[in-house]
């Protein structure tokens, strides 16, 4: 078994607390992440991603592999930022893995974030082990993206569960109205 090489990984980190931000930057660096780009809030994060799209050579960043963002930030919070990443035409990569950091872990809030298309949640207070696990999960268990009239984001079904009784899901990959895009 070999170790991951995070040296070529680019992470965009949006966190408004300067203390937590430098804490996360350092932790990621020590784990071996090659490039961490810290910004102060969702607005700065959006500006950064626009530059990645429009002038990658100038800022020296071709793409962002993972976004880690705090939820509660001012003036642009993590949810608004996530919405932009997933839905805006200027977003350089609407499929980028998006980890939301939050101290609010009530089921309702988590559900809200899931409906908006988060890839994962990092709950505060976090440990290094938590951060490592999120990275591994993103690398090892990426989910297909689902696009319907009501939803766009990583598949909300993480597991393939055995169903008792009849299969009532109507659509398969072969059904009319289902389009599978591979890349």
């Amino acid at each position, binding site marked *: 078994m070999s*170790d991951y090489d995070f040296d070529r990984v680019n992470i965009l980190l949006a966190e408004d*607390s300067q203390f937590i931000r430098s804490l996360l930057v*350092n932790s990621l660096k020590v784990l071996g992440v090659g490039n961490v780009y810290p910004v102060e809030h969702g607005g700065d994060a959006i500006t950064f991603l626009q530059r990645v799209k429009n002038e990658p050579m100038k800022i020296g960043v071709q793409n962002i592999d993972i976004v880690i963002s705090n939820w509660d930030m001012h003036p642009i919070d993590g949810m608004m930022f996530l919405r932009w990443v997933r839905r805006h035409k200027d977003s350089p990569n609407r499929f980028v893995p998006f980890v939301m950091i939050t101290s609010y872990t009530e089921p309702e809030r988590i559900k809200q974030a899931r409906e908006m298309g988060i890839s994962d949640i990092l709950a505060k207070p976090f440990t290094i082990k938590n951060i490592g696990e999120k990275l591994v999960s993103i690398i090892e268990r990426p989910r297909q993206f689902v*696009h319907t009239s009501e939803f766009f984001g990583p598949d909300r079904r993480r597991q393939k569960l055995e169903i008792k009784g009849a299969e009532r899901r109507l659509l398969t990959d072969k059904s009319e109205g289902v389009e599978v895009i*591979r890349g």
Partner: protein
Amino acid sequence: MASNTPVIVRFYRFQNKLKEKTAGLAPGNASISVEALEAAQEALSKMSEDYPDWVSSIIMKLQEQHGRCVDTPEMRRDCFEEINHMAHDMKGQGGTFGYPLITSFADSLYGFTTSVAGEISDSQVELIKAHLDAMRAVIRGRVSGDGGEIGLKLTESLGAAIESYEAE
């Protein structure tokens, strides 16, 4: 797609480029080494030592805002909003660094400054100060954990301040 059926759902299935980038193309599982995790945890703990300084710097900023509330009553609403943001920032990680009392006091300050209706009274401004005093005592005395007797005393005296305000 030749049919005229409108698309109901689109599935996007991509190659796992991130895995190629981090684990190479060779089959087999990669992992994060125990050494790397330990080194990172150590770095985190090292930074945690700076936590009291960070809290102190925020308490100073909170103090400034409190001063503005006293000096310029017409600015109180803005100040309360600032204080509310800072309190939120503080309450998140106190527990991680061994100062749950900071989290608890910051949480109380946050709740108290969230959506304040009507005019902000002098006693409400006073209550800000009670919170700051309690936090300062925690940091000055490096009262970690639940703080034992000192912690209990601080929590009680802040509780009493809040009660007397609510009784008004």
